[in-house]
């Protein structure tokens, strides 16, 4: 294997965004990618990425092994949708970077990138208020800022490359341990080509008062985004992380496949909040899992809007006694979209509790699937799980499926499962229209009402953004 022709110093053959009709996408600016691994996936691609990042040998080895696992694993179409076969791995670009070092202050961020952020509607004041902003622009973070107070507390908040290079003693221990490479085909893919994402370490007892936040988006056609996130909350610490994405519309399918690992050590609390709004051609195949030690708490709040297909089942492994896991999930599937989402709760210690609340909305031909896995083995005592999943259908063509897999053994544990399917009735829409609301506004209000109890758990700015996204989706769904 030779990397002679693929050293990072050699410029890319062509600009990946050239030839794209810039007017048809919502917003895409001509970014000069300094590093580009080209399209298609091979060992050379992996070598290139590793070299561009000046990675340690162990990481490169990790990547190459993962690539073999990816090749070896079949598409999981024996249980998942055959839509996965539409992904053409040869046409995807696996690595692009604007070649910039992550920025510390807003002033240092290049103008064209700022312009894109403006178009994404990230309010100025949010940047100021939020403790740390790690905004990922394509493969590398274009901008990152940790509020002084946070770093003074000893919190490390960097991208994956910097974390593995500068702080291997902290991150290597858990990297790829919560979600092993071979967990599934897409976690293997991510492990081979990962780039960007956030690595966070919170020292013992530190309570990060402001949520840490990252925005990222896809900005080039056929460009896969494979960010990798690892959050370690040391004993008794607390942290909230928020991620949100918007992607411009492009005609060819785009792949997003992230891996997010959380580790909450004894008594620690991690809350991970996602609001994702992908363009309707994006395959969003994400593996998210947390490991909760004794008396630790991990909460996933996950909201999925858009995409061609989303497959995502945030999970918590409840490893220590009295650990708590929670998944709050909202999915909206519009015409031509499939939201295949859910949650996994693996109870592995006594007196562990888990809670799953999943709400899905299917509009038009949109399809929602809930998959849940709750596992409580026989030898455990005092474990509890509560699962609620509610589906809302808007018009008769929508489809919704529920696949709960609950394995509870032993009689000292308690499980509760509730599921409901409801429809936005014509009567309800007429009632609202009679008060002056348009059909779109009426639907939007119904949907917002349906998720209201969950949306209230989001931080203010996210619930506002969520409402705005739903308004836009519903507006577009009315003929």
């Amino acid at each position, binding site marked *: 294997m030779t990397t002679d022709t693929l050293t990072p110093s050699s410029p890319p053959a062509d600009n990946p965004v050239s030839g794209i009709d810039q007017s048809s996408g919502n917003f895409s600016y001509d970014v000069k990618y300094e590093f580009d691994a080209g399209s298609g996936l091979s060992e050379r691609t992996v070598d290139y990425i590793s070299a561009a990042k000046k990675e340690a040998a162990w990481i490169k080895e990790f990547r190459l092994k993962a690539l073999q696992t990816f090749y070896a694993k079949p598409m999981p179409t024996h249980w998942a949708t055959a839509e996965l076969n539409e992904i053409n791995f040869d046409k995807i670009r696996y690595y692009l970077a604007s070649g910039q070092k992550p920025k510390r202050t807003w002033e240092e961020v290049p103008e064209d990138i700022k312009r894109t952020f403006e178009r994404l509607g990230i309010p100025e004041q949010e940047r100021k208020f939020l403790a740390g902003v790690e905004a990922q622009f394509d493969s590398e973070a274009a901008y990152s800022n940790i509020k002084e107070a946070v770093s003074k507390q000893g919190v490390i908040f960097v991208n994956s490359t910097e974390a593995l290079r500068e702080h291997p003693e902290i991150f290597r221990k858990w990297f790829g341990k919560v979600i092993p490479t071979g967990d599934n085909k897409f976690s293997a893919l991510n492990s081979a080509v990962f780039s960007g994402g956030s690595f966070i370490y919170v020292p013992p007892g530190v309570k990060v008062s402001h949520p840490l936040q990252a925005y990222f988006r896809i900005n080039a056609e056929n460009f896969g985004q494979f960010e990798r996130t690892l959050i370690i909350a040391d004993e008794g610490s607390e942290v909230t992380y928020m991620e949100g994405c918007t992607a411009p519309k492009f005609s060819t399918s785009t792949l997003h496949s992230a891996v997010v690992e959380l580790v909450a050590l004894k008594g620690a609390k991690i809350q991970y909040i996602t609001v994702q709004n992908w363009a309707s051609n994006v395959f969003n195949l994400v593996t998210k899992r947390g490991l909760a030690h004794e008396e630790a708490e991990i909460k996933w709040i996950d909201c999925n809007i858009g995409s061609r297909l989303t497959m995502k089942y945030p999970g918590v492994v409840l490893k220590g006694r009295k650990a708590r896991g929670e998944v709050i999930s909202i999915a909206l599937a519009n015409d031509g979209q499939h939201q295949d989402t859910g949650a996994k709760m693996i109870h592995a210690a006594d007196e562990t509790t888990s809670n799953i609340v999943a709400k899905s909305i299917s509009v038009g031909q949109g399809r929602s699937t809930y998959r849940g896995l709750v596992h409580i083995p026989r030898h455990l005592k005092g474990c509890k799980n509560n699962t609620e999943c509610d589906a809302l259908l808007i018009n008769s063509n929508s489809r919704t499926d529920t696949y709960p897999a609950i394995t509870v053994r032993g009689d000292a544990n308690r499980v509760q499962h509730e599921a409901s399917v409801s429809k936005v009735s014509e009567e309800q829409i007429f009632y609202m*229209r*009679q008060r*002056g*609301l348009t*059909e779109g506004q009426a639907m939007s*209000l119904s949907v917002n*009402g*349906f998720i*209201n109890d969950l949306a209230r758990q989001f931080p203010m700015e996210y619930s506002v953004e969520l409402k705005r996204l739903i308004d836009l989706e519903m507006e577009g769904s009315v003929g």
Partner: protein
Amino acid sequence: MSSLELIDVRVSLGEKEIVKGVSLTLNSGEVHAIMGPNGTGKSTLAKAIAGHPDYTISGGDIRLDGKSILEMEPDERARAGLFLAFQYPSEIPGVSIANFLRAAIQSHLGEGEELDATAYYKRLYQKMDMLKIDRKFTSRAVNDGFSGGEKKRAEVLQMAMLEPKFALMDETDSGLDIDALKIVAEGVNQLRGPGLGVLLITHYQRLLSYIVPDYVHVMWDGRIVKSGDKSLALELDAKGYDWVKKEFVAA
């Protein structure tokens, strides 16, 4: 001064004609009651005027201030000043009355006009006091788990806030005990005035003891078969609908 004119209005549900030619002019400041036994087309008429998608206007015309509204969407009719107080108001889980009303009022404003939130709440609380509604009421989801009386009061509250030109009140008395009926009727009476025309649809005379109409119309088999003043309601109460029916058949 506004007018709502029904000109030989015919309404069908699918193939079946339910309202078979109703003519009636309602002016601002007037209260008209339409009475009649069940299944004579009273509620159908009210819903059809509001533009319910299940019903087709198969003949005639409905004019608001001289202009036909038949081509208007239900929400356009609402914004033009028509209000329907539903017999069975829909539940909207998760949407509070305060937020729902806010969205409704906002929809009546012109483009670029923003609702003044402080003024809105001030007015909302005023109307609620008038209708003897507890302040906590507005944070409850619209009609979700409401008693019959609460639902009807919520309808009158919305009517008070939206200030329509014409209110079509469909069996507002149904499902109410006498105390709830009095409160709702009192609310409607307070809203009566030169700017509002009311079409009261009711099965029973008892509502009309509390909301005294200017005109009473009796509907039977999709037609208005007798009209008169408020004394007609009392006569009906004494003699029953069979009396009108016999008179109509004889004619």
